[in-house]
């Protein structure tokens, strides 16, 4: 489903999701319908003759409205990490899907939607903490099977530099600089977590895909032209 489409030919119809661009009179209408208990419909008028529609997963912190740029993934079973060890696990993360209009030189987001229900949480204390998008994930030793419209797979490389056994029950990312890659079956991202002590760890995103020949998503923060400097995040209120 993800990829590039010509504006006039854009049409994605799945079980409960319809995305389509229709020509009405002199302009195009973008229409999105998600059918569930309460059906959700969104329409946008597009004034333009040609162009491309790009559909790809974006950083999952925009729904139902953007209030944070942090993502917390809570492990359903915590991990105990040996001192000096370095190993990789796989987690799932929530997906939000961005619909972009691409012209000759610029790009504009016309819709963001998701098929999972968002939930938020506080990491740290109410005074100095941060609001995060909340997600619970099992911990896998290999890439799990997921629905690429709902969940992505994240490879998390945990490096324990603390010199002591450490229990890890969650990971928090600053979503700016997240790199998401996709193919027909999988949406993925690669990350690292370096543990410095019982309460402090540093997380970051890597720029390489999980598998070969995966396409890179258009990052939302690039499309919005925000001056984003890729940077890691220091978890200082516990791991």
């Amino acid at each position, binding site marked *: 489903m993800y990829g590039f489409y010509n504006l006039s030919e854009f049409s994605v119809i799945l079980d409960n999701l319809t995305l389509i661009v229709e020509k009405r009179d002199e302009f195009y209408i973008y229409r999105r319908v998600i059918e569930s208990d309460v059906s959700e419909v969104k329409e946008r008028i597009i004034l333009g003759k040609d162009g491309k529609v790009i559909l790809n997963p974006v950083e999952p912190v925009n*729904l*139902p*409205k953007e*209030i*944070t740029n942090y993502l917390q993934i809570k492990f359903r079973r915590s991990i105990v990490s040996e001192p000096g060890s370095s190993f990789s696990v796989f987690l799932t993360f929530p997906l939000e899907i961005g619909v972009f209009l691409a012209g000759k030189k610029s790009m504009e987001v016309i819709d963001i939607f998701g098929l999972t*229900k*968002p*939930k*938020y*949480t*506080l*990491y740290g204390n*109410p*005074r*100095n*903490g*941060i*609001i995060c998008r*909340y997600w619970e994930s099992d911990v896998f030793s290999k890439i799990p099977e997921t629905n690429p419209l709902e969940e992505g797979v994240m490879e998390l490389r945990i490096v324990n530099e603390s010199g002591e056994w450490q229990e890890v029950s969650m990971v928090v990312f600053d979503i700016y600089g997240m790199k998401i890659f996709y193919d027909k079956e999988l949406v993925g991202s690669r990350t690292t977590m370096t543990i410095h002590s019982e309460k402090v760890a540093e997380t970051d995103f890597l720029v390489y895909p999980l598998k070969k020949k995966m396409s890179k998503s258009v990052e939302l923060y690039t499309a919005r*032209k*925000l*001056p984003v400097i890729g940077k890691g995040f220091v978890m200082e209120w516990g791991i």
Partner: protein
Amino acid sequence: MIDIIVDVLNRNIYGDVTVSDFLVAMAVMAGATVIARIITTNLRRTLVDKMKRDQLELILKVIYFVIIIIAFLAVLPLLGLNLSGLLVAGGIAGIVIGFASQSVVSNLISGIFLLSEKPIKIGDQINVDGIAGFVEDINILSTIVRTYDGLYVRLPNEKVFSSNITNYVAHVARRFEYVVGIRYSDDAERAIEIIKGLIEKHPFALKNPEPQVFVDNFGDSSVNIVVRIWAPSAVWYDVKMEILWKIKKELEANGIQIPFPQRTLWFANELNVRK
């Protein structure tokens, strides 16, 4: 004609200051004001997406006034004002002006402390001395608040500084509370389960700190369940408005009712009804 204009321009207004000096000084000040406005307007356009609004406003104000002050100092000699002379005169004038402008100076100092201590920022929702609303601007002498009714309120900085300030959004998350009364005949555990389920479904009812739902007390007409929810400060009022009505609807859909105030009367003798 030219002779007349030259004559007028060379005419002394006071001391050695001529009309032309005065006009040049005014032109320089006007030019500096225009330049300051152009620079701040362009900086605002460039930086509006890249900085927090309160920091941007502060920087723009500093730049604006620095340009104006430099221009003012530059034109002082044209107006026959010697800075060293001003220092002497300023001592005496300072005492006079000091007495005359106590409240202005007090507001100024308070403004500086407010800007440095930062108990409030532009855009925050605050309550100062009973006036609640959004902080629109923090000036050197006053703070501008837009109340929730959309009214413009100017608060002198001295008042803001010396009053109790409640900043509703200073922290990233805040808690709010409902009291939900149910009938004595209803199952309180079931009601708690339903309410917890609704909270879980709302995206901005925070997962952590965990919401609390418990039977708090036995009221005159109802069993009172307290519901405490944490939400991001930026959206807490929206969350508060949305969840309460959903709780009512969902409880009623499950046969649990919120009772009216009621009193059960016991009569010593059996009542006889007459027609």
